[in-house]
């Protein structure tokens, strides 16, 4: 029987998990590095091969123009939507992009679903290695507040990765499933899910019935462009401003920007435990940006970001008709809930200590695996009732939106609308479908437009009933019937932002060139790519050492690095990926003192001539 896996396709990391029937709990499947966290980074090599995960993450430093991270931010969006994002993220959007964004990576152009498909393909290969068997069915999680276009883009990504997507599950709901299974609790639960790029809040009721346990979502809210990325960006703005004060503009150094980002993320992680940390960052002009930052200063900087999560929290509670004190459990999900200020803010609001026993990185993937098991029929005493996060409406006279399915309706949900002609011999009725809470069409998210064709006749004679149905994945289906003729009425729905079926088909054909490579061949490509990037970094460091501090590197150390370089280069000519990996590790170890030496020297230069008190 085919296995159905659960996938958390995250902004920063993606994971794949599976519920083994013989075991009580689901578990995450580790990749080649032993960790189940796959960085959601994709890089395209000069020879056209695709690199995903840890190896791609390293290429952010060496080949930033061929590498992309946080692509989830672009899913289901048009070029006009992401102008703000472009100021901060190094996305290279193809100027020819129309309703679907196209991103340039090296010589090629990809849509966000295609890039996400590479990540899914990588995870799929992890699972296939683990099972030593093929995997073709999946449940994929999405932010609860994702709109129809963002959900469709995610489903397209699954298809392009060769996966049958049985269901899209909302991330906080998946977390609640994993949590409920773990804690055996009942009652009203709030799931606060603050991830790398998205924020969701869901209010659920966990009920025991004679048939089994029901997880009923009462309301959901969020912001699909609010996450840990924003904290990184706040730190980055601060640092770049200060670096500009030192006379260096990093705009001219894209690879340095990525290294700075890496250093700042490390500082952010340290500030989750420590009261202060120091950022020591060598600049392209040989100086060092040295900056101490205290927890208090950090919290002042990020408080506006954390506060932005509370509006959706209040709205979700109001929609569920509950007060904060009526929530019996608060569950924290997502890497950004490691930030102490986030925990404090949530605890203060609900007046109770939130749960964080489950690993916030893994819990969503684990819940997706549980849902996969439910769909396979493995678990038959759990039922998930989720809601649609946004109201569905159609445009009426004067650009006003008539809501036909209100937000927080349990899905599947449907609405029927009757349409007729307004003037004699009118041959078509235009319908514009939107999602959102605002009154006017221009302020809502356009989902699709279509035209109902009618035979010419007197005004008001045609009677076409259109059925709007939001399925259990939160995706809209539209069908129409001609009530007078008693027949199905065919319609062609053109998505406003997204790929139509023909485009997905074409991409599927194109993607065959990336399709299933032999397992060891794939391993070899990955090992080679990683080796190349370590070699580039090492050679760059050696050259810099030679020019900046000639004669200082002990002969012994230099020789061990050079020997490792030679050995690794030799192994690249062969096809033994294990040997390439092992020698990459040797080089990594041999070059560690070199990297430390450089950092120390850069730091010493920066501090030269300063008294201790000024540091």
């Amino acid at each position, binding site marked *: 029987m085919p296995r159905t896996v659960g996938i958390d396709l995250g902004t920063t990391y993606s994971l794949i998990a599976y519920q083994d029937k013989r075991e009580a709990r689901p578990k995450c499947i580790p990749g080649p590095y032993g960790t189940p966290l796959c960085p959601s980074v994709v890089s395209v090599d000069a020879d056209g091969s695709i690199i995903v995960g840890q190896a791609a993450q390293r290429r952010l430093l060496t080949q930033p123009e061929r590498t992309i991270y946080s692509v989830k931010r672009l899913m289901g969006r048009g070029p006009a939507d992401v102008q703000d994002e472009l100021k901060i993220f190094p996305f290279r959007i193809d100027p020819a992009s129309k309703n679907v964004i196209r991103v340039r990576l090296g010589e090629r152009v990809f849509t966000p679903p295609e890039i996400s498909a590479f990540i899914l393909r990588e995870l799929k290969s992890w699972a296939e290695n683990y099972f030593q068997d093929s995997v073709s069915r999946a449940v994929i999680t999405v932010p609860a507040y994702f709109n129809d276009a963002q959900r469709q883009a995610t489903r397209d990504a699954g298809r392009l990765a060769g996966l049958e997507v049985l269901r899209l599950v909302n991330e906080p709901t998946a977390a609640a499933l994993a949590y409920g299974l773990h804690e055996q609790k009942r009652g009203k639960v709030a799931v606060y899910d603050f991830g790398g790029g998205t924020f969701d809040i869901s209010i659920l009721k966990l009920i025991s*019935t004679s*048939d089994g346990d029901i997880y009923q979502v009462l309301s959901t809210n969020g912001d699909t462009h609010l996450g840990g990325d924003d904290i990184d960006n706040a730190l980055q703005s601060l640092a770049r401003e200060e670096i500009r004060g030192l006379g260096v503009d990093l705009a001219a150094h894209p690879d340095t920007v990525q290294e700075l980002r890496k250093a700042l993320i490390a500082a952010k992680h340290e500030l989750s435990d420590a009261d202060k940390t120091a950022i020591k960052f060598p600049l392209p002009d040989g100086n060092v940006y040295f900056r101490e930052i205290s927890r208090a200063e950090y919290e002042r900087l990020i408080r506006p970001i954390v506060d932005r999560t509370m509006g959706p929290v209040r709205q979700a509670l109001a929609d569920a008709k509950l007060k904060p004190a009526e929530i019996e459990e608060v569950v924290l999900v997502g890497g950004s809930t490691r930030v102490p200020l986030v925990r404090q803010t949530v605890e203060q609001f609900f007046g109770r200590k939130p749960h964080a026993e489950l690993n916030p990185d893994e819990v969503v993937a684990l819940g997706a695996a549980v849902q996969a098991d439910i769909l*396979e*029929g493995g678990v*038959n005493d759990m039922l998930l009732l989720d809601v649609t996060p946004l109201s569905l409406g159609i445009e009426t006279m004067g650009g006003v939106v008539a809501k036909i399915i209100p937000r927080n309706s349990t*899905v599947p*949900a449907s609405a029927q609308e009757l349409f007729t002609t307004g003037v004699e011999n009118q041959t078509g009725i235009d319908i514009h479908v939107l999602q959102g809470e605002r009154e006017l069409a221009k302020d809502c998210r356009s989902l699709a437009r279509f035209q109902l064709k009618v035979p010419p006749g007197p005004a008001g004679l045609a009677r076409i009933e259109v059925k709007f*149905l939001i399925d*259990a994945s939160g995706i809209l289906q539209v069908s129409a019937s001609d009530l007078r003729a008693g027949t199905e009425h065919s319609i062609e729905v053109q998505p406003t932002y997204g790929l139509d079926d023909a485009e997905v088909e074409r991409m599927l054909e194109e993607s065959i060139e990336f399709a299933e490579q032999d397992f060891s061949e794939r391993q070899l490509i990955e090992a080679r790519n990683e080796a190349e990037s370590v070699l580039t970094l090492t050679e760059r460091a050696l050259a810099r050492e030679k020019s900046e501090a000639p004669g200082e590197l002990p002969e012994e150390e230099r020789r061990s690095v050079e020997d490792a370089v030679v050995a690794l280069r030799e192994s690249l000519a062969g096809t033994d990926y294990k040997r390439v990996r092992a020698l990459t590790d040797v080089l990594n170890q041999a070059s560690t003192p070199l990297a430390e030496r450089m950092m120390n020297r850069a730091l010493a230069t920066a501090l030269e001539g300063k008294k201790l008190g000024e540091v």
Partner: protein
Amino acid sequence: MNAASTTVTLSATCRNCSAPTNGALFCPSCGKIQPLPRGADYFSFLGLPQKLTLDLDTLEQRFHSLSWKLHPDHFVRATEEEKQLSLDLSSQLNDAYRTLRDPVARVEYLLSLSGMRKEGQKKQQAPPELLEEVFELNESLDELREARDSGGSPEQMQGLRAKLESAQHKFESSLADVDQELAGVGKDWDAAIDSAADEAAGKKLMERMNEVLNRRSYIRNLVNGVRQELAVT
């Protein structure tokens, strides 16, 4: 009394095995899922009489029990036709639950079943007992907008705000009164069903409910309008 036009067709046969289904959602003979019987409405779907006072706990229990049976999660391995039926039925179940658990939507739905829900022709016209208050409100709103455009003093704005807030409270309490009234007519309707009153009496009650609904919608728009105005002031 013949409450609306619910005659559930019981003569249907199973799509799978052709055995008579007696209007059941699952064939008594082969157990396969069936379409909703012709003429079924939200009340009958949830096994409830067409009454307006209902026990929300019972409603929720019925909703949950039917969700178990109909949800698409349990039809992943079924045929395409069964999958579609599960999708249709569970969406209708969710729509039914959403409508019936809300006391106002419940009345609107009951009226729509017999074509008795008629939105007010003169939507803009205030109910006579509120005429004076609506007149005052419109005056304050004009003053407020004018003051806002010409940059009124903080004291002036404060005063106008207070005026609007008191109007808001007034209309909110009118809204609560109307809701009470609606619940009252609902009880009359339930009593008429219990005593099998004649059709004319039922029709009269529906007309009354329709009138209360129109008045309610007018007041609710007022409340929303004032709320919005206060939010931007």
